[in-house]
């Protein structure tokens, strides 16, 4: 089967890869580019563990083909921190112990970052609604929501300084 040459920007770097049409973006990230932070829980758009940001909008990378990424800008969980400094969402996940097995965490981190980029001051309800496409089988969600709201207020504090 013919391979496609795809040019993208991933986590700020220009990236080119070859893929077959039936490879999802998630397959390409994990298997070709060794960016294994994004996880595959369901491959059907239900769990959000594969969430990445494409051209500023969060999407399920399991429901997008690698070839569809041509010309797009992709941010994965590997691109959220700045060097060794964790993103406030990541830091707050640690502080609030918002994870147990951690399988869902990359998806939640990416989705929460996308939320706070769009709405720096979400209510609890808005945060829960925004994150409705991410499933967690361990935490019961409460700590995740607290971490996200705390990260939001931290980021607002930083922005005000």
């Amino acid at each position, binding site marked *: *089967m*013919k391979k*496609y040459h795809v040019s993208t920007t991933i986590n700020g770097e220009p990236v080119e890869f070859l893929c*077959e*049409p*039936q*490879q*999802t973006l998630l*397959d390409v990230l994990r*298997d070709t580019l060794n960016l294994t932070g994004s996880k595959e829980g369901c*491959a*059907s*758009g239900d769990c*959000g563990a594969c*969430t990445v940001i494409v051209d500023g*909008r*969060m*999407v*399920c990378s*399991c*429901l*997008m*083909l690698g*070839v*569809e990424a041509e010309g797009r800008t992709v941010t994965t969980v590997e691109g959220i921190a700045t060097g060794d400094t964790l993103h406030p969402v990541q830091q707050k996940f640690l502080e609030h112990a918002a994870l147990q097995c951690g399988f869902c965490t990359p998806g939640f981190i990416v*989705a929460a970052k*996308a939320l706070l980029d769009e709405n720096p001051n979400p209510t609890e309800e808005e945060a829960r*609604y*925004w994150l*409705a*496409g991410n499933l967690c089988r361990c935490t019961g969600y409460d700590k995740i929501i607290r971490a996200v709201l705390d990260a939001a207020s931290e980021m607002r504090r930083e922005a005000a300084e």
Partner: protein
Amino acid sequence: MKPRKFAYIRPDTVDEAVAVLGEYGDDARILAGGQSLMAMLNLRLVEAAALIDIARIPELDTIRVAGDKVEIGAAVVQNRLLAWPDLKSRLPLLGALLPFVGHFQTRNRGTVCGSIAHADPSSEIPLSLAMLGGEVVLRSLRGTRVLAASDFQRGVLTTAREPDELVAAVRFPVAPSRHRVAFREVARRHGDFAIIAVAAMVEDAGAVRLGVGGMTGAPAIRRIEMNGGTAARDAIETLAWDLEGFEDIHASARLRRDILRRIGPVVIEEACRCAA
């Protein structure tokens, strides 16, 4: 890697897209947002020799007001329509029900037309098209066909689209301002397919248009006369037995009827309250 191998074709224009589709017919699938198609390919519920990606065709990525209709092209994603400034005033029913469609992730790629072409019996967008009496625009090498929503969706995942036809756009009639709407659904969790979805629209002083998704293969639309007293409740009781409902892993037919009996009157009342 889960899907079987397929060819990938990305035409630049609608003419090119329908030419390729004419060639492949049934063996090809149209890829717009892919939020149903990709899941089915991953699970190997469908197979295709080729995917024809129409998401980047500029002429399909438009929301256009044409006379008393809003025409939405096949590449318009659900979140784009949700963010359309005129949505609440021109298409209040879609304003009420789009937030229930999937999640942020899937609405960022899933298209309005894709949902209608997919024709899931419990999905919200086909219900709104049926409620409003909208139209589906089909294009093929043979020309353009326009079908009423009720002629388009035939049953569960079944439509009147011919294998060589592309759902190029859908048209929603603009609601007169006196048409007030309400919408509710019951799902296992927010964003899942609805077990039952109910929409109501006040048509005139004496009647409500009621739309029910999840009971039958295609949305069921009824006019309900409001003669005071228990008229609405009685009508919904009859409707529940009429439609019967079906059984799947999410709910029995009886549970479906019960949900309809409970939320039907509430939705009607909400629509009437808006109207008052």
